[in-house]
Each structure stands twice: as C-alpha cells, then as structure tokens.
C-alpha cells in the first residue's frame, strides 16, 4: 500500500493555491464538500469541449462518445463499491435524492400504516426527513436507536427496536461525530427480523473502502461531491431484484420503454429511475473522481486519515485539555476524520469566525443533524474534517487559530 504523499496531492487541487486574508487556505470542511482535483475538472471540461451531446439518443459519433463515457462512469462507480453489476447504480442528484427515491419508490409500495422504520439519533436530515414525511403521510412508525456515552450506537435494545420493523436506515459514518458503524452485523440483525437495510454512505464511501456486498445492505446512498467529484450527482446502489420490482420515481423521457396515449411502459434498470436528460458532465466527473481515489487506494486514504485524525485529537487534547470538548469517539479505529468540538462557553459560530481570519475553513452549526444536537445538548458545534489533501501543518494551523479564538473570547 503506497502512503499518501500530501505535498504531491495538494498540487492536484488548484483551489488550495489560494490565499485568503493573505494566508494559505487551509480547508478543513471536506465533510461538507470536498475539493476537486484537476483530473475531475479536466474530465468535465473535456466532455463539454469535445463530446457534448445528449446521451442514449443520437447515433452520431459524439453522441456515441458521450453515452460511452456516461455509462463507463457508471461502471466505475459500480466497481468502486463492489456492486454486482453497473445496472445496480442509479445516478441521482445526491445522497438526499437517493434516500427520497427509496422512500417514494420502494417504501410507498411496500410499507403500510404502523410499519416500523428504525433510524438512529446520529442520522443526517437526509436520512430522517424523508421518513418523517412518510410517517406523516402513511402512518409508518419511526423508532430511534440511541447513542452510548462514547458517541457510538447503543445496540443493547436493537432486537426490540427491530421487532416487526420493515426498514433499518443507518449512517455508515457520522458527519458530526465521525463514528463508524459496522454495517454487516446491523444488516444481519435487520434481515433476521425481516427488515431491509438502507445505508447513508455519504461520509463512508469517500473515506474508506466500501463493499456493498460485504455489507449485505439493500440500499446504499452516496454523493459525488464529498468524494472529489462535482456537485449535482450521486448514486443509489440497490439490489437488482429490488430495483426491478420498484415502481419508477420520476416520470418523463429516458425512463420509458414505450409511451402511447394510453400509458407507458418503464425502461429497464437503471434507466427506469433516471428521467430526463441527466447531469452528463457531472457523471463523467464522478467517474474521474473514482479513478483519482482508486489510484490513491482507499486503504491508503483510510490509513492517512486515521493517522492525521489521531494527530489532531492528540494536539487538541494536550493543548486545551478539558476546556475543549470533543463530541465523538477518541479511538481512531472507530471513527473517521470529522471532529466536532466546542470550547466551554464559546459559541461555534464565534470560533469559526476567528479561525476564518487565519484562512482556515471549518464548519459551525447543526450540520444537518438537529436531532443529534438535541441529544448532545448543544445548539451547534464547530467541526473540522480532514481528507487526502490535509496534513499535519493544517492541524497545527487549526490548533494555533483555536488558541487565538480562546484568548479572544476569554471571560
């Protein structure tokens, strides 16, 4: 396994050459969105310059090229997560759309009033609100898997919660806590109880090797923009047999096989779920992002982040001690690179403001996880998150800026 050489990687990301407030840009918000390497930008630009044409329709040369690149990207994404076939990858706008697709297409066809869905307290709104909408509309029952004091899932009551449940919807890696959830045991328990499993893999796919077959999940959602790809494209992986049985999500062109005045026959999977002209350039960019990460190797990516996160936790701990509270596990083996924290008595917003003076980008807020904030007992946290282009110098810069923030607001 080749180690990540961050100095070489930084050169791949043109935005990192920027200076803000006269200082080197330090980007620590990859959990919100990742930066894009030149290879991804070039791939999208190349498509528009050389072979821009609508896909699946034309027989002329550039239309063929566009279609070939579009579908090749799908195959790349499929291989990246170990799908059984490319047709199991549905292009969507983002992970949020993927979850909504499952809620509209699968859940509405299969769930009845009173059917339980099990969620967790650490879920992102994308994996909460669609189910709340379904509960309001259809009367499904929402149950919640709580957290331990160590910010991991409390599985002690899992079997009770899964009793009679039809779906377990769970995050593979928390965007707030960093917690990594072992999916396979959860899937086994859910399947044994007769429930399907949907995984929010938005933070997982960019940061560690994911094998959807190993997970034995039924639906997996992730977005391109968090894994070095462009915004506006993501994927829903789902088992072929489920996709074949599900009614279409959106109706229109592309997703049909036949349309008459009387009605329509949907297209086969995956196109059944891809209505209208897709985000072609973005899909190609998605494929280029997969290539970029594959070249680095996801094991190397994970190893780099584990080490860097460990360094960050250690520096934060020794510099601030009890004055800085970290919301998430401290064991790097069970967590990814998103670190949420607060100073005693200083609001997340204010911390981020001071840190921005040093050209450091961290996120302050509820991180689209308001139920989790309530459980943690805080209105907001500050979050720093790492990716392949971050190194120890970035961590050191963050710590120095936090020292400044603490002094600024000292009572």
């Amino acid at each position, binding site marked *: 396994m080749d180690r990540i050489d961050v100095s070489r990687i930084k050169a791949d990301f043109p935005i990192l050459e920027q200076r803000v407030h006269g200082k080197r840009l330090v980007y620590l918000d990859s959990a919100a969105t990742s930066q894009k390497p030149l290879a991804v930008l070039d791939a999208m630009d190349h498509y528009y310059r050389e072979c821009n044409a609508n896909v699946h329709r034309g027989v002329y040369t550039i239309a063929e090229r566009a279609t070939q690149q579009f579908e090749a990207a799908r195959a790349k994404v499929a291989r990246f997560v170990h799908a059984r076939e490319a047709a199991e990858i549905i292009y969507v706008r983002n992970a949020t759309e993927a979850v909504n697709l499952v809620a509209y297409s699968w859940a509405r066809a299969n769930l009845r009033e009173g059917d339980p869905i099990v969620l967790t307290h650490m879920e992102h709104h994308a994996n909460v609100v669609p189910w709340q909408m379904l509960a309001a509309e259809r009367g499904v029952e929402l149950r919640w898997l709580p957290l331990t004091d160590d910010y991991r899932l409390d599985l002690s009551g899992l079997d009770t919660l899964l009793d009679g449940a039809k779906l377990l919807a769970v995050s593979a890696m928390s965007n707030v806590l960093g917690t990594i959830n072992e999916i396979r045991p959860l899937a086994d328990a859910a399947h044994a109880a007769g429930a399907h499993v949907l995984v929010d893999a938005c933070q997982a796919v960019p940061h560690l090797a994911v094998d959807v077959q190993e997970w034995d999940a039924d639906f997996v959602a992730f977005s391109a923009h968090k894994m070095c790809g462009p915004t506006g494209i993501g994927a829903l992986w789902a088992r072929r047999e489920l996709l074949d049985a599900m009614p279409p999500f959106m109706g229109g062109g592309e997703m049909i096989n036949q349309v008459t005045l009387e009605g329509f026959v949907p297209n086969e999977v995956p196109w059944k779920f891809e209505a209208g002209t897709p985000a072609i350039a973005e899909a190609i960019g998605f494929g280029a992002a997969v290539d970029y990460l594959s070249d680095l190797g996801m094991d190397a990516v994970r190893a780099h982040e584990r080490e860097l996160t460990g360094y960050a936790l250690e520096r934060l701990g020794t510099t601030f001690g009890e004055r800085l509270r970290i919301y998430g596990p401290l064991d790097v083996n069970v967590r990814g690179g998103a670190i949420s924290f607060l100073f005693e008595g200083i609001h997340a*917003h204010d911390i981020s403001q001071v840190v921005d003076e040093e050209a450091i980008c961290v996120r302050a*807020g509820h991180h689209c996880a308001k139920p989790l904030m309530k459980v943690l007992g805080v*209105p907001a946290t500050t979050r720093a998150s790492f990716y392949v282009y971050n190194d120890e110098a970035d961590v050191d810069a963050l710590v120095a800026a936090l020292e400044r923030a603490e002094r600024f607001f000292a009572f």
Partner: protein
Amino acid sequence: MPGLEDLYREIILDHYRAPRNRGELPVPPAHKVEGFNPLCGDEVVLYLEVDGDTVTDLKISGQGCSISQASTSMMSAAVKGKPVTEARRLIRAFKALMSIHESKLEGEGDGEDLSADLEGVRLGDLEALQGVVKFPVRIKCATLAWNTLQQGLDEFEAGTAPGA
C-alpha cells in the same frame, strides 16, 4: 480587509458576557415569542409586556453566538420602557443599518429609502453592531432579536398573543 475588531467591538463582547434583562415574565400578562436562526442554531426568547402603547417590561433568554446574544441584550436595553411606536422605529432603523452598508459595499445606488429609516433615530450602543455588515453571513445573527421583537409586537397587536 475587515478584521475581527470590526465585528467584535468591546461593547458587543460586554453585552455577550453580561447580557442585560435576562429572565422571564409571567405569561400572561406578558407575551412570549421565540426566534430561531436555522443556519446555526441561534435562539432568542423574548418576554414582552405591553401596557397601552408602551413596552413596560421586557426580558430575554436564549442561546447562541456572541453577535446574536449581544444584539438581543442591546435591543432589550434600547426598547424597554419605550413606546411601541419608538420600538418599531428602532427595528426599522437597525435593519436599515444592516442594509444600507450592504448596498454601499455592493456599489448600488443610493440607500435613500433606508436613510429615512435612520433619520432622527438615536441608536446609541447599537451602532457598535455596524461592523456586522462586513460579515454578511452574520447579519442574520444580529437581526434575529429584532425580527423576533417585531413578530412579538405584531402578534400582540393582532390580539393573537396569549396574554392579550
């Protein structure tokens, strides 16, 4: 390049550390109104007591960033004991303070309509919050208290207030 001193004037930090008028009032006769900033979790809770046409008492609570809480404290000091009409003028003036500078920064024409809102209004301590406009993302933090106050006054006047 705007610096932190523009945003965090000493008087703002003072109000943040020692907010005025914190507490609650019995509802009724007071009216309780809550405001949220969904972007970052700032929360403002106001207890308004309006007798006739005067804001006779006002208490604040809530949690959030220094800008939102300082603005709430400064608002409470400015509005308590004042006629409702004066309170409403202050609301308009404060929002104009936030907006005028914004349009000046963007090089847009004259903020004449907004200037009218500021004319003759003594903002006093509130002027310290002028620096917020250089940090557009924080404007909502500063205006939260004022929007909440406006909502409270509107509700009270419409008679929908529980205390009415």
